[in-house]
């Protein structure tokens, strides 16, 4: 008797197989179909309630207006700040999180170990993929996003040789954090880290002239301005939700936005200085038309720089006033007032320069101008 003429027992076992397979497929469909509403309508409201957010929708809407709808909502249109956006693209990740059940912990631990090992061995091929997997499974922990973004932006980027590759790694870090912000809109840590990446890494690293240029090409604005927005958003979120940074005290965390404006004003002043010098060089070379065009461009940048210094001065003043009645170290308050004063003086100096400046007297006036450094 050959094997394919199996008896009723074999038929029975085949049908058992089929039943098991059907169960597995059915379970997968059920979980996939159930995961989105479960997360959206059960898990998230519970999470919000646990975090103490009980504002009514109208109140939230008015708060959203303070952020600006487009910026507060991150990459998607969302009217209620504080609630993470769940997109359809999150479905596979959410389904995986639920399907793994109790195995999520060991799997994530394994992912962390593997990713760290790859980083230590300087193998970067799958690093972004590993970090994304970790973040998918632990999306509710802001520290996860911040830690991995720090690795991408600081530790991995510097191991590459060309400035463009370094810049691309820093951009990946920023994009990674923006995704983290979408999932954790309350997190001041993520917002601060984004501000830090734009300000400290793209704005002030040794390779910053290249990075600033590239950031402007990609985002159309100075990285200091983008950093200011993230720090400012962090301040507002901190005030609204009572969350605070783990690494910085509240006054220092709040002052980061003001620093960014000072850097921004300094950067504009540098640009203005370079443009006027280019105009003088053109004039010396006999390219009169170029010289005049560059002079006009310099004037425009001068106006921008005056506005930026004024903005920075006002920010520092607000910062000093905000903490006047709080028990913070007196020297810190003194520093804020000094920064307010210095920014004001810089702005006034440029205004005076502007009032006396003509195309004809540029060579003479330019000698009084000093190119500021971003420190």
């Amino acid at each position: 008797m050959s094997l394919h003429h199996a008896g009723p027992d074999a038929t029975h076992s085949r049908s058992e197989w089929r039943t098991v397979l059907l169960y597995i497929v059915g379970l997968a469909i059920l979980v996939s179909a159930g995961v989105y509403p479960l997360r959206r309508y059960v898990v998230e409201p519970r999470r919000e309630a646990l975090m103490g957010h009980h504002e009514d929708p109208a109140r939230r809407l008015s708060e959203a207006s303070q952020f600006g709808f487009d910026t507060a909502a991150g990459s998607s249109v969302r009217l209620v700040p504080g609630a993470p956006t769940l997109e359809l693209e999150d479905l596979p990740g959410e389904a995986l999180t639920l399907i793994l059940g109790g195995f999520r912990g060991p799997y994530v631990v394994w992912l962390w170990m593997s990713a760290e090992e790859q980083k230590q061995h300087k193998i970067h091929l799958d690093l972004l993929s590993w970090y994304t997997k970790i973040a998918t499974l632990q999306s509710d922990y802001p520290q996860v996003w911040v830690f991995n973004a720090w690795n991408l932006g600081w530790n991995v980027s510097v191991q590459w040789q060309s400035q463009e590759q370094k810049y691309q790694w820093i951009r990946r870090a920023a994009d990674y954090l923006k995704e983290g912000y979408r999932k954790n809109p309350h997190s001041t840590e993520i917002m601060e880290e984004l501000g830090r990446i734009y300000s400290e890494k793209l704005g002030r690293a040794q390779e910053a002239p290249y990075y600033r240029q590239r950031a402007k090409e990609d985002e159309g604005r100075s990285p200091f301005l983008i950093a200011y927005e993230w720090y400012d958003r962090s301040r507002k979120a901190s005030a609204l939700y009572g969350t605070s940074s783990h690494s910085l005290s509240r006054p220092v965390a709040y002052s980061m936005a003001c620093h960014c404006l000072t850097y921004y004003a300094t950067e504009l002043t540098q640009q203005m200085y370079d443009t006027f010098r280019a105009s003088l060089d053109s004039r010396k070379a006999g390219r009169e038309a170029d010289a005049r065009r560059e002079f006009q461009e310099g004037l425009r940048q001068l106006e921008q720089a005056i506005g930026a210094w004024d903005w920075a001065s006002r920010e520092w003043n607000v910062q000093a006033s905000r903490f006047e009645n709080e028990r913070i170290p007196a020297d810190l308050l003194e520093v804020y007032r000094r920064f307010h004063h210095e920014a004001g003086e810089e702005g006034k100096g440029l205004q005076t320069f502007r009032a006396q400046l003509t195309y004809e007297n540029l060579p003479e006036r330019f000698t009084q101008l000093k190119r500021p450094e971003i420190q």
Partner: protein
Amino acid sequence: MALITFRQGIRMRLWVLVLPAVALLVLGDLSAPRFDPVFEAVPAAIGTSLLVMAVLAAILGIFFATYSLPAELESKVAFSVVTKPVSAAEIVAGKVLGMSLLVLAMLALVAIGGYAYIVVRASTIQSLAAERLGEVTHRAAFPADLNAIEAIARRGPLQPYRYFTVSSGPDIFVDRGPDKAAAPGTQWILGETGMRLVWSLEGSPVRQWVSAGGARLRLRVVVEPPPDAPASPTPVFVAVLPRGTELHMNDPSMEDPRSPMGHVRCDLAPSGEAWIPLAPPDAPPTQGVINLPPEAAGDLDIALVAFKAGCVLGAKAGSATLVNASGQSYVIPMAPVAGSAKDRRRVMLAGRSTLPRQVAEFRFDDVPAGDLGEGDTGLEIGFSLDAWAPPSVQAAAEITFTRSDGRQQSLLFSPEARRSTVVYLDRDFWHGGPLDVRLACLTSDDHMGLLPESVRLRMDGGPFLLNYAKSVLRVWLFGTVLAAAGVAASTRVSWFVGILVAAFFLLLAAGRDWLMQFPSFAETLFLLLTVFLVIAMGYFLTRKRLRWGQRLIRVAGVAVLCFLLSWLFALRLTVLHPLPEITWLLPGDTASAGQVISFGEMGLAFALAVVCSTVLVVFGTWLFKGREVAA
């Protein structure tokens, strides 16, 4: 028997696993972001497809191969089979062969889906590369920097390659410039690069003269000061070392005034002459005097290193002389040897923006023109860059290819640290034959670390489909061995226990190398597992009519014996070493990256799979014969 097993798998509709596998492959790849999709997306897609196939093969090996025989035994089908004139070995071998065919069929289906996905992905990547090329052209420091992306935009990312390894090199020497006169027999070193001139003191009377009242070392070298710099003394480091000792100029113990001074730092006059007193090993250390190493150190060498950037020192035979206290002199007859700085296995190449500068030369002896194929040929360099220069300085390097007829072609490029830098060769310039490659770092204060084997020619590897098929075949070999393990396990135990045994075999074999790194942990773990398995085996092997007490004594006796044997013969040797590393059968990351799997490697994989499967079939047959049904 093999066909029956195969048909059994088909009847069980195992092919339904193919669709989820392909879906998993596509979703898994698309959901994993890549830093640079142009270079990484297709290797990642290939790697994902092979991983999914390996998992599928493992599932079949663990779950289905262990199911077939126990199911037949339970349904009594096996009883009718064994009554036929079919041996136990034929039954087990047939099961393994059938499973192998089933794995092959399933993998072929998944491979078709995977291949289609990879081709589609490759076409999108080719379009992306064309777009990126437009974006990055104005940012590239040198045209050669765009070579790699141009190649993908032109020919697509599905370009397998194989390597032609370097025949000799790297030889580090100094490029003094075209206007410098050649000096036959002279060895040159460059200041501030770690290069050194080494004279051998073998056969010299240095020890006798020093112990008899002292001696002096007189060095006369050619000094070429840096261009546009006035002639001035050159600071040098001179040491007398036992032969084979690596020179560590930054070793703090060398600066300890209490220890014997094996070296001096002095200034070499513009004339290139220096006198260095030598003292016995036990003489009190004195600044400016070299204490010879102890007698037991054996033969000695003199090493000279210069510390002035851009300064070239040259020496030939007769440039070093020993003079004793009575004025008698001994000229060291051998010419010095010029050596370069090394960091472990890396050869360090110092950078300079102007001549003179260090260069590294590699030679490829007679590359057959027929091996070049139709695709691009490039030189791949795995740099290990030490960024001593500020990060704001963009590193630059120059590569010069020289043909056998002396014609040269030079290219400037930006070296990258974390991935191989590929510089493509112009087919009109070189189409096989000998090739000399000269490499120089043009960034001042920067160093390139070169591993000898990291420089190689990357040549066309033929059609992608063939290479992909080879990778799939290797997954199939892996699945076959696992299936053999599953069938062997299922000859003796039930389905569920068979699953555990097959999974244990897979874990053990897959983690063999990893476990070998932790001998104490591995030995403890395997000791426990061996004891457990021995007890389990003993339980199954003992006769049923024995009493419990007798059975226990017998099992304990076997366990203790195995325990002692394991320790006596070292557990790693008895358990881990004989176990094959079956994950070696799987194609590695290099195959995903596009490197061709050679036929020799395929042959080895086949041989390993055949040996492993045969051993498992023999073992399974032995176990099967022990059962009543086959006895």
